[in-house]
C-alpha cells in the first residue's frame, strides 16, 4: 500500500521548509530509515528518512521549492504500484496547486525554483498533473491534515508585535524578524529608527560574530555551492552580491536579537595552563581520540556548573530555569557555516568522551546532518579562537543560553607568583553573561571555580 511521505515539523513553529536536495530518484529503492530528501529551515538541515521500505513512486516537489510543513513530498510504495500513481494520488486526496507558498515569500532561489517548475511541467517522464500546477508544490485536500497556517503559528507564538509599516518593510527586506528587534515607539512599537538600528547592529554584530567564533576558514557557508551569487549592475562598480544562505541569515538574526535583547556583561580572568597542558599530554597518551585544550575547557565548564549550580540557569519570561545536567554548546565553524551544537551531560563525560563527541559534531556539521535537537539546550557555550592566536575576545550569548565563554590562546608570559617573576603559559577567558539570569558576583564566583579547575586539572578527572 503506497503512502505519502510528508514534510516533518523540523522545529517548533516552523511552517515551511525548503526542499534542498533529493537523495533518491523516482523509482529508487528505499529501505526503512534511508534518507530520502534533505530539507532546510532557518535552524537546521535535515534528512527526511523513509518510514517504510519501498520505492519512490513519485516526487511531489522539486528541489529549491518552499513547502509547508505537513505537505506530502513523495509517494512511496511497491514496485507493482508504479502504473497507478495518478490514481493512488487521487485516492490519497493529493491535488495539485492551491495554497502553495507565494514565490516572493521564498528567500532562497525563487527564480531557480520557478525555472525548475517549468522544467518539471514539461518533463515527459512525469506525466503528472504537476504540469497544471502554478508551482511544483502539491497540497493535501483533506482539511484535517492541513498544515498549520501562518496565522495559527503567530497565535501560538504569543502576542502580536507592534511594528510600523515602514519598519516591517525595512526589516523584511533585511531579513530580520520582528521578534529580534526592540521597539521604542508608543506601545513598544518598532519604528523606522528601531529597524535601522537593528539593521546596522546586525551588520556590525555579524562581522564581529564571525571574528568571535572559532572560524578557521573564511565563512564557508557563503562560498558553498548552494549559495547563489549574482552580479548586479551595481556590482560592476566593484563588488559582488552573494545571496544569504538560510544559515547565514539565522546566525545574523540570532546574534542581532541576542545583542539587542539580552543585557550582556563580561567577566575576564587569566588562567595559567602549564599544568593543564601537562595533564593533557598525559591523557593523550592513553586516549583514542586526541584531546584538545578546548575539550578540557568544555569539561571544566561542566565541573564549574556542578560546583555552582546557580549558574546553570537560563532566563525565561516567567521563571528561571535551572538545569539538572550540564549541557554545553560548542561553537563550530563548519564548512556550511557557524553552528553551535550542544554536548549532553558533560559532567558525566570523560575528557576523551568530550573530544570524541565534539569531533562527531564537527563531522555532522560539515556534512549538513545536524538535527534540530543537536542544536538545542544548555545554558552555556564555549567558543575558542585560541588556535588562531587570538589572545582575548568577548562573544555574544547564543539565546536562550545565559552565558558564553570566549577562550583565547595560551601564551607564554612573565607572571608574578609570590613576589617572583616566573614564566608561565597564560590563557585569557572572557565570560559573557546574561545579567537577567546571573549577577556579577555569581559570575565571578563561577569564574573562580573554573580557573581553579583549569589550574588544578585533576579536579576534572576526579
Amino acid at each position, binding site marked *: 500500500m503506497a503512502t505519502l511521505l510528508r514534510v516533518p515539523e523540523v522545529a517548533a513553529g516552523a511552517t515551511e521548509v525548503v526542499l534542498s536536495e533529493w537523495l533518491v530518484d523516482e523509482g529508487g529503492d528505499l529501505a526503512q530509515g534511508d534518507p530520502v530528501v534533505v530539507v532546510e529551515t532557518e535552524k537546521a538541515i535535515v534528512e527526511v528518512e523513509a518510514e517504510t521500505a519501498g520505492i519512490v513512486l513519485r516526487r511531489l516537489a522539486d528541489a529549491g521549492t518552499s513547502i509547508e510543513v505537513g505537505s506530502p513530498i513523495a509517494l512511496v510504495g511497491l514496485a507493482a504500484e508504479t502504473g497507478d500513481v495518478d490514481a493512488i494520488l487521487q485516492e490519497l486526496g493529493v491535488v495539485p496547486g492551491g495554497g502553495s507558498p507565494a514565490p516572493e515569500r521564498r528567500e532562497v532561489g525563487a527564480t531557480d525554483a520557478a525555472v525548475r517548475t517549468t522544467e518539471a511541467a514539461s518533463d515527459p517522464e512525469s506525466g503528472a498533473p504537476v504540469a497544471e500546477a502554478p508551482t511544483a508544490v502539491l497540497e493535501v485536500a483533506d482539511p484535517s491534515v492541513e498544515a498549520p497556517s501562518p496565522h495559527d503559528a503567530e497565535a501560538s507564538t504569543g502576542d502580536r508585535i507592534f511594528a*510600523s*509599516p*515602514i*519598519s*516591517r*518593510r525595512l526589516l523584511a527586506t533585511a531579513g530580520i524578524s520582528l521578534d529580534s528587534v526592540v521597539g521604542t*515607539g*508608543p506601545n513598544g*512599537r518598532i*519604528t*523606522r529608527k528601531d529597524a535601522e538600528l537593528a539593521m546596522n547592529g546586525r551588520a556590525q554584530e555579524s562581522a564581529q560574530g564571525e571574528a568571535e567564533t572559532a572560524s578557521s576558514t573564511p565563512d564557508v557557508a557563503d562560498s558553498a555551492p548552494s549559495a547563489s551569487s549574482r552580479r548586479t549592475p551595481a556590482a560592476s562598480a566593484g563588488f559582488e552580491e552573494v545571496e544569504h544562505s538560510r544559515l547565514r541569515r539565522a546566525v545574523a538574526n540570532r546574534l542581532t536579537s541576542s545583542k539587542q535583547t539580552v543585557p550582556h556583561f563580561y567577566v575576564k580572568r587569566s588562567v595559567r595552563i602549564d599544568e593543564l597542558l601537562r595533564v593533557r599530554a598525559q591523557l593523550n597518551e592513553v586516549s583514542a581520540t586526541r584531546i584538545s585544550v578546548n575539550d578540557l575547557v568544555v569539561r571544566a565548564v561542566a565541573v564549574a556548573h556542578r560546583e555552582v549550580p546557580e549558574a546553570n540557569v537560563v532566563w525565561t519570561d516567567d521563571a528561571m530555569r535551572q538545569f539538572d545536567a550540564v549541557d554545553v554548546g560548542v561553537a563550530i565553524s563548519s564548512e556550511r557555516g557557524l553552528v553551535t551544537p550542544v554536548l549532553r551531560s558533560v559532567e558525566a563525560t570523560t575528557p576523551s568522551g568530550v573530544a570524541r563527541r565534539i569531533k562527531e559534531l564537527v563531522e555532522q556539521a560539515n556534512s549538513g546532518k545536524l538535527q534540530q535537537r543537536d542544536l538545542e539546550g544548555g545554558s552555556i557555550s564555549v567558543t575558542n579562537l585560541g588556535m588562531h592566536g587570538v589572545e582575548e575576545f568577548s562573544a555574544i550569548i547564543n539565546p536562550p543560553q545565559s552565558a558564553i565563554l570566549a577562550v583565547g590562546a595560551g601564551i607564554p608570559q612573565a607572571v608574578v607568583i609570590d613576589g617572583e617573576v616566573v614564566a608561565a603559559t597564560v590563557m585569557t577567558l572572557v565570560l559573557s553573561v546574561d545579567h537577567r539570569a546571573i549577577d556579577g558576583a555569581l559570575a565571578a564566583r563561577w569564574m573562580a571555580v573554573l580557573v581553579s579547575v583549569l589550574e588544578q586539572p585533576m579536579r576534572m578527572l576526579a
Partner: protein
Amino acid sequence: MTEKKHLTPAAPWVELTTTSADWDEVEASDLRRMFVQTLWIRVFEEYVLQLAGDGLVHGPAHSSIGQEGGAVGSILDLTTHDYVNGSHRGHHQFLAKALGHVMGSGDDLALTAEVRTVLRRTLAEICGLSEGFCRGRGGSMHLQWQEAGAMGTNAIVGGGVPQALGFAFNQQKAGTDAVTVSYFGDGAINIGSVLESFNLAAAMNLPVCFFVENNMYAVSTPLSTSTAEPRLSARGQAFGIPSWRVDGMNPLAVRLAMGEALDHMRSGQGPTIVEAEVYRFFHQNGPFPGSAFGYRTKEEEGSWKARDPLDLLRQQVLRREVMTQDELDRALQEITEAMRAIGGEFLEPVVGGKPGQRQIRADKWPDPGFVDIGIRGDLSELADSRYEELDSFDGELGDRRFIDVISDVMARRMEVDESIVVLGEDVDGLKGGTNGATKAPLEKFPERVLGMPISENAFAGMGGGMALDGRVRPVVEFMYADFMWVAADQIFNQIAKARHMFGGDSAVPLVLRSKLAAGTGYGSQHSMDPAGVLATAPGLRIAAPSNPFDYVGLMNTALACDDPVVVLEHVDLYTTTGTGPIDDLDYMIPVGKAALRSEGDDVTVISYLSMVGHCLEALEQVPEVSADLIDLRWLDRASVDWDLITASVQKTNRVLIVEQGAVGTSYGGWLADEIQRRLFDWLDAPITRVTGATASPSISKVLERAAIARTEEVVAALRRLPTY
C-alpha cells in the same frame, strides 16, 4: 380715520382663451404641425409606458400624456436659438423642442430619418442605453440636447429654473432676441429657487419665460392644500412679471399666449410667466391612472380626458380640412410602427422566458467602464498654457497685498476675455465688494460686475446656466463659504454633476470664489472651511492659494479651465503682503501641482490656504522637528499632487495634515484615508491631524479661538509627534 388708496400691481395678469375665429385663422401648416407633433409625442409616450409596464424602463417613467398640447403649443414658435429646460416630467417638451429643431420651418410632416433618430435616441436615453442623448446616464429625467436648444430636464423640483436665467442672460448679452423657456409644474411653484429666480430675472430684465404646467397635483398632494392662491400665475404680480393664464389642454390657446409672451421678451421687456392648466392622465409615473392611487376620482379624470388636446387637434384638423381621416389614420399607423421598430432594435425575447417577455439587448447598454468617464474634463483646454513658479518667473516681483492681487488679476482677465462676468452680493458696491476683491473689475468693467440680491441658490444657478451655455464665463462670489449650504442644490446637484449626468461632454466653465472667515467673530454660520464638503463632489475642482503669487496663477488656471473651479480665499490673507507679480498677471499654475514650502526629514506636513503660513510659523517654533511642508494648492481628489506627497512620505514616513476648521466638515479625513491606502508600507506612525474643535466657531472671541486651529495648535501637534 385712515385713508386708503387702492394699489395696482405693476405688471399685467391676464387669462387668455380662444374663440372659433382663432381656430379659423391659424395657418393650416401650423395646425398640421401641432397635430402631428402631439400625435408623435403621445404615441411615443404610450410606448414608453408599455415598456415601463414590462419592467424595461429602469427608474420612473414620468409620462406627460394629457399635457402634450401645452408643450407643443408653447414651443411651436421657438427657434433652435431659443432654449428650453424642464423638470422631471419633460418628455413632451424635450421632444417638441428636438422635433422643432430637426423639422425646421418647412411643411414636411413625414417621419423623416432625422425625426426617427430623435425618437430613437430619446427612447434609448429613457431606457438608459448607450445611444441615448446623454449616453444613457440621464434617463427620463435628464434629457439634454444642447444642439437643439434643449438644455436639460432636471430631477430636482425647481432645480433647473435658476439655470434658465443664465441661458437668458447669455442670449441677451450676445445681442440676440432669443429667449429661454423654463418648464416646471405646480409642485415647484413654492420652492425657493423658483421664487428667487422670478425675482432675479425680473430685477435683471432677462428674456426668460417661466412656464408653469399646473396639473393640480404634486404627486398626490392637491394644489388646493399647498397654496391659498391656486391661480399660480398670480405669483407674477409679486415680482412685477407680466403673466398669462391659459387652458393648457388647448394647444392653440397656449400658442397664442406664448406668442404674446415672446413679443414681450424678444422686445427686451424682461421675463414672463405663463400658467397652463393641464392634466396628466396617468399617475406621477408608470402606466396607471391617479385614481388607482386614491388621490383623485375617475370622474375627474374622465372630465379632463374629454378635453384631450390630441382629440381637440384632430377635430380642428378635420374641421379645417387640412388633413383627411385617411391621412390621420396613416399618421397614427406610421408612428406606431416606427416606435415598434425602434423598440425592436433595443429589445430581444428572453430565452426561456414567458411568452412575449423581452429584455434589453446586451450590446445596447453602456459599457460599465463608462461609469466614471467625464466627471470632469480632460484639461485639454489648458494645453500650451504658460505655467510659472516663483523660481521660474522672470517678470517683476514685489510685495503685493493679497486683496489687491485678487482684484488686479480679475480685472486683467476681464480685459483679455470679454466673456468673464462677476456676480455676487455687493460686488458692485462699496468700491469693490465687502473686501475690495472686485475693486479693479468694477472700475474698469462695471457692466460686467453684477450685484446680486441675497439669493445664493438663484444666482449660483444662474452662473451654472451661463457656464452650461458657455458664451459667458461666470465668476460667482459667495460672501461667506457657509452660504454654499444655502445654494447647495445648485453647487452640488447641478453644477458639480451636470457634465457627467448629461453624458460627459458638456463643459461647465464656472469659477466660484468662496471666502473663509474663521477668526473674524462672525460666528457659527459664517466661519466654516468648506473644503471638506466641497471635496465630496467629484465634479468640482478646488484651488486654495496661500500667497499672492499663487493666487494669480491659480485664478488664471481656474478661469481657463472648462470645469467648475472653487477658489477658496481666507480673510486672514486679504490684508497680508507677500511676493507677487507687479505687472505680469498672465501666467498660470498647473492643475494638480502642489508646492513644497519647507524641507525636512521628520514629518510631512500637508496644509493649504492660510494654514500654510501657520505651519511655517509653527515649524520655526519647533526647531527640533524638521518637516516637509506641502502646500496642496489643489484640494479636489482628482487634482491632489500624489507625486509630491508620495516622495515626501517615502522620505519622512510620517504625516501631519493641518487645517483650521471644525472636525465634522474637515478636509483631511479623506486624504488620510487615501494616504494610508497608497503609502501604508511607508508609514512609521499613524497619520495625525490638526483641525478645529467639534463645535462651529462662536461669536465670543475666546470661544472662537478655542474652536479653530492656528499656529499654536500646529506647534502642539509637532511636539506631540513622538507620542504617536
